[in-house]
């Protein structure tokens, strides 16, 4: 394992220290329990938005803390959900009197820990609502299983709900909006290489020189299928088709297309993928009216990408365009 780190056990802490040193105007970082909090939190009268999850997905979530997006993020160990005490402390820290929304990716660990935290925070007098994001069409959904994973739509939900909270919407309204984003967003991911969890020291899985994994999550889990490596156009076809058919996205729809890099894939490739995606969607009569291209929800140094489509209406478009000022996403200010 070769990584630009020091002690394996210090990666998360030192990356947080680096963030704190880099962005004191936007965020403040606390270490015990660990959280990244908006510099001016709590914002009085505004709904607070808290997310969190394992580390290794940077810039998500800590890089999305700031005006117009998250009020706090709770970083866990690499690929391990954070703990209830972190989430409870973050919830308290951002409670400006209008309640706090938890945006939770649908992984057993994240869900259970956020549930415990919401109980604790509510006992402490903070109104909490939780919305679980489960947008990954690679996972067959069923009442009897853990359901679909939360992936790329999370980034979009954090941005859009952050804008709505800035607008002064109530907790119920922001939570409903988050459910709307989740209901209209679908994703799928793929990997050309595995990644190496620092504490494990070995790649999580091995892929041959001519193989890829389709339907991966964001924790180095193997995907649903191993296939021969294929061209960008073929990969886009394999991922976008189930996405489009799942919602379904139909002719005439406006979408936000999010082509996400898994951490080790450079921008030049993501633009090639985006180009193929736009062609595919045009062929189906779907208009891409907004886009996001880059490594925003990563799996350490994994090579690969994911595609997220979010069906837009005027409300979502306006909230997407609203100003945001975080280390990872910034516009309008």
């Amino acid at each position, binding site marked *: 394992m070769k990584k630009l780190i020091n002690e394996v056990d210090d990666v998360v802490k030192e990356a947080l220290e680096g963030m704190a040193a880099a962005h004191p105007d936007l965020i403040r970082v606390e270490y015990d329990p660990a959280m990244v909090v908006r510099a001016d939190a709590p914002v009085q009268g505004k709904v607070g938005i808290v997310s969190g999850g394992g580390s290794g997905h940077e810039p998500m979530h800590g890089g999305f803390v700031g005006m117009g997006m998250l009020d706090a993020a709770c970083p*866990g160990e690499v690929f391990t*959900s954070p703990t209830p005490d972190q989430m409870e402390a973050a919830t308290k820290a951002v409670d400006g009197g209008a309640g706090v929304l938890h945006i939770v990716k649908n*992984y057993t660990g994240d869900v259970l820990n956020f*549930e415990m935290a919401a109980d604790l925070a509510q006992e402490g007098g903070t109104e909490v609502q939780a919305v679980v994001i489960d947008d990954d069409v*690679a996972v067959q959904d069923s009442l009897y299983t*853990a359901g679909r994973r939360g992936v790329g739509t999370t980034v979009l939900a954090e941005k859009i709900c952050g804008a709505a909270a800035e607008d002064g919407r109530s907790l119920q309204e922001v939570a409903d909006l988050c459910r709307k984003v989740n209901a209209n967003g679908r994703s799928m991911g793929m990997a050309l290489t595995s990644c190496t969890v620092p*504490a494990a020291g*070995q790649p*999580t899985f091995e892929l041959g020189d001519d193989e890829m994994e389709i339907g991966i999550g964001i924790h180095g*889990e193997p995907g649903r299928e191993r296939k021969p490596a294929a061209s960008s156009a073929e990969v886009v076809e394999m991922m976008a088709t189930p996405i489009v058919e799942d919602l379904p996205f139909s002719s005439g729809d406006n979408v936000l297309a999010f082509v996400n890099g898994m951490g080790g894939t450079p921008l030049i490739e993501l633009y090639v993928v985006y180009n193929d995606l736009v062609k595919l969607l045009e062929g189906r009569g779907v208009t891409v009216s907004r886009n996001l291209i880059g490594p925003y929800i990563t799996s350490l140094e994994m090579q690969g990408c994911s595609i997220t489509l979010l069906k837009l209406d005027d409300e979502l478009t306006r909230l997407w365009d609203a100003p945001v000022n975080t280390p990872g996403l910034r516009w309008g200010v």
Partner: protein
Amino acid sequence: MAGGGEVVTLQAVLAWIDGFAATVAENKDYLTKLDSAIGDADHGINMNRGMRAALERLEASPPDDIGAALKTVGMAMVSKVGGASGPLYGTFFLQLAGPLAGKESVTLEEWAGGIRAAVSGVMARGKAELGDKTMIDALVPAVEALEGAVTEGASIGDGLTRAADAAAQGMEATTPLVARKGRASYLGERSAGHQDPGATSSHLLMRTAADTLAQSGQD
């Protein structure tokens, strides 16, 4: 009655916790390797982080009774592990602590009652059932074996060994299953053919109990 007067002491419970921490440390890479096949390669790391924190806290403020000891372990798991296993093992120890609060020794029957509460707590929290390919597949057979042993009046050593053996069987039985809960469920059919890491750590927990708790005192 066989094992009559035999009890599980605070000292034995502490030996169990120590022993489980040591077993987890020894099996850290193994558990992580199991998790890398169908999960995210951290189960050994998670459990080890939690049990190390538990030992530190127990050393910092030694508990006066069994319930307090188990509560400390539960809180350490909840606040130091994260992931699925943090709240689930945390719940296990916290629920086990409940009925044993304030006690310096307990009978096998009381112990079995605690374990039943613990396993029910884990099921309530995680909503997994037998056959979902989770730690439940080791824990449920274990608690049933333990309750059977109590009914038959078995000794502590015998009861705990039967529980551990049942856990082992349950753990092994996870291998062919397709996971329906936890991260492994995302793999669909590909999750079959691998032993569940959480069931494996739960078996270690039960096996360590058989090895440590039986070194118990008399009332």
